[in-house]
């Protein structure tokens, strides 16, 4: 026989172990990405729109654009 005997490798439950690890990782990563998106993109965008329209004066905006000369119907 061989001089040194190697330890017997893991023979069973290989798929179960892989699934456990990857399911847990996938769950955590998905939740993390979703949370980061909600905070970093969605909430940020909602706040930007809220801040923009809080003190928005459409007529003032229109006058500025008219003076810049981009309209064809009013000069």
């Amino acid at each position, binding site marked *: 026989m061989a001089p040194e005997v190697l330890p017997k490798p893991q023979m069973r439950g290989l798929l179960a172990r892989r699934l456990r690890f990857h399911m847990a990782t996938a769950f955590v990563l998905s939740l993390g990405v979703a949370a980061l998106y909600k905070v970093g993109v969605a909430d940020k965008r909602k706040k930007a729109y809220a801040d*923009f329209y809080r003190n928005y004066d459409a007529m003032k905006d229109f006058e500025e654009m008219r003076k*810049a000369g981009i309209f064809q119907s009013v000069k």
Partner: protein
Amino acid sequence: MLPKAAWSLVLRKGGRGRRGMHSSEGTACGGGKTPRYTNCYAQRHYPMPEEPFCTELNAEQQALKEKEKGSWTLLTHAEKVALYRLQFNETFAEMNRRSNEWKTVMGCVFFFFGFAALVIWWQRVYMFPPKPITLTDEWKAKQLQRMLDMKVNPVQGLASHWDYEKKQWKK
């Protein structure tokens, strides 16, 4: 991987069927004899090849094969290794060894990137026609000024980065 597995299924079905039909004739022709390009070499994605690695066996190897038909506990360690080497040309460790091929591949890829860049640079200098009027700098400046006047995307986009009082980009 998939074509090889499918092909081996086809081979096995064909071999068995044809052997079944010809068995009464005595000489069993082993179906379609494919040349031994890869069916005797194990690969990482196909570790159990169809054909054994050594098919021409000398006398002592034949004797060993006969001994293999008996109880395996009677085989010595050296005989087991010899039988393995008859069946497979490389162990798993040898078959899965790393190589430095990736460096060659990446080197060639980058080399041809650079070569293509040189060719396109020469074309830019000697072959390209003048830019369309809409891509000249003056036109692009006037276009940008008009977009700012229209307040394009004022919430998060272009006009939100322009400071209309100071007439410059926001810091």
